[in-house]
């Protein structure tokens, strides 16, 4: 349903961030997008959701198609209306709105009022912690609570494709597990396709069907999740397993600057 074809993205006319990224999200699948800090994962998501424009960024080459329609020149509102919703990184809650209002904003474009009410309750069921705080101004929530709210808000739109930018960021371990269960459930129940950017590679590859690894603005590796998990580099750099398969201790990390990345 979503095809990103060899796009290049340039910020402020001078800073080139993506240098030819292609990926594919097909109906109802979960796709993981992995990569180090600054690889361009967030930028890729922004390119899809049309959010680049407000940051002086631009897709200078390549194209993005959604259901066969080319969307890389559309505004973010139009793209959202087509059924793509993004949970942005950095816990972007609407601070001065209450938790409930935040969720309502998420469902703004939906007409089915009754269904929206039910969805709010559903979100509260997934995240009981924020249910207690439903009248609280969201700016006062703790980091993790805000993260739950952002995910909940993205879900409220009932999109066909959801772009999740690091959903597990700052969540307690118990909750990370839950979140992934929820994502998997939504994916299977609502046939919602998900493009997932994650640093928690273990969890992401656990539910994803397919994965891409980005490096320096390029896709350097892709394949079905199972195959990626077995890739030697992925195992070492992302899963923290040495060749033998045992886990290293953080105390014993070596003091030299290590070999980095696939491509120089």
């Amino acid at each position, binding site marked *: 349903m979503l095809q990103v074809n060899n796009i290049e993205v340039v910020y402020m006319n001078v800073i080139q961030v993506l240098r030819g990224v292609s990926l594919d999200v097909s109906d109802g699948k979960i796709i993981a997008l992995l990569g180090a*800090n600054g690889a361009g994962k967030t930028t890729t998501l922004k390119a899809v959701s049309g959010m680049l424009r407000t940051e002086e960024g631009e897709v200078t080459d390549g194209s993005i198609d959604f259901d066969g329609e080319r969307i890389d020149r559309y505004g973010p509102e139009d793209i959202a209306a087509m059924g793509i919703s993004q949970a942005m*990184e950095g816990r972007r809650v609407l601070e001065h709105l209450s938790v409930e209002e935040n969720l309502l904003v998420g469902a703004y474009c939906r007409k089915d009022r009754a269904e929206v009410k039910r969805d709010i309750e559903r979100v509260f069921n997934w995240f009981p912690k924020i249910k207690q705080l439903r009248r609280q101004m969201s700016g006062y929530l703790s980091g993790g609570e805000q993260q739950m709210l952002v995910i909940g808000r993205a879900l409220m739109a009932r999109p066909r494709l959801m772009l999740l930018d690091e959903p597990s960021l700052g969540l307690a*371990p118990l909750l990370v597990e839950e979140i992934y269960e929820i994502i998997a459930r939504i994916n299977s129940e609502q046939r919602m396709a998900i493009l997932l950017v994650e640093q928690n590679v273990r969890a992401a590859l656990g539910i994803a069907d397919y994965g891409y690894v980005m490096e320096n603005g390029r896709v350097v590796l892709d394949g079905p999740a199972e195959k990626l998990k077995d890739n030697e580099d992925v195992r070492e750099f*992302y899963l923290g397993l040495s060749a033998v398969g045992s886990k290293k201790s953080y105390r014993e990390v070596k003091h030299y600057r290590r070999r980095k990345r696939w491509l120089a």
Partner: protein
Amino acid sequence: MEKDRQVKLQIDKVSLSFGGVSALVDVSLDIRDKEILAIIGPNGAGKTALLNCINGFYKPQKGEIYYEGQKITRMRPDKLARLGIARTFQNIELYTHLSTQDNLMAARHVLMEHNFIAGALYLGWAQKEEIEHRQVVEEIIDFLEIAPIRKRIVGLLPYGMRKRVELARALALGPKVLLLDEPMAGMNLEEKEDIARFIIDVFEGQGASYPDTPVLRDGIRSIILVEHDMGVVMDIADRIIVLDFGRKIAEGTPAEISSNPEVIKAYLGKEK
């Protein structure tokens, strides 16, 4: 625990609430010289609130906080920074329009002395001081391996890099106590390893490799780490404190904590 080790920071029955929400309830703990103390707990347990109390941003309704024996409970945050308490933030709080280097220089503020008149004239003294501190900043940049982004505007850096700059800025304050609020969130494993190594290196001190920068040379002897990644916490913390609903529910070594049933129920979940 060795009781004779000097207590750096003592938190005594601190309670904090916002309207109806109690963020902290009678929390007592202390951090001693030469230790990395981890604070863990579910989301909304009050970890960040506790750090905010320590550095004066929140004023607790009850209880007292002592730093090296001095009562600091209602002190202004900037005074506490001068006393040597530095921190990083959960939702990155950098000076977005400054370069990495200037962010660190801005933290050196507390250790610099020239005022705006000397600065305006930029003669001898001010220039000398600027250069001196610039040297320290460069050492920190070198230590944290952020030289390539030295002159980049931090607002545009990727998430992980900004976290690292925050750590650098905290070090630039030259603190004696370092509070870290989820320094590794949003990083992949390899980057977490880097940060873990930096924390350990800072804790241990680097001696002669960074002769001009006291924090790096002698190390920071007391570090409080708030983090959700259990792997990291278990590996590098000397002692762990667990908060839940604003209360301290457990305290102990990593081994003790990981087998504490209450902690498993509230926070860790079943071991897989």
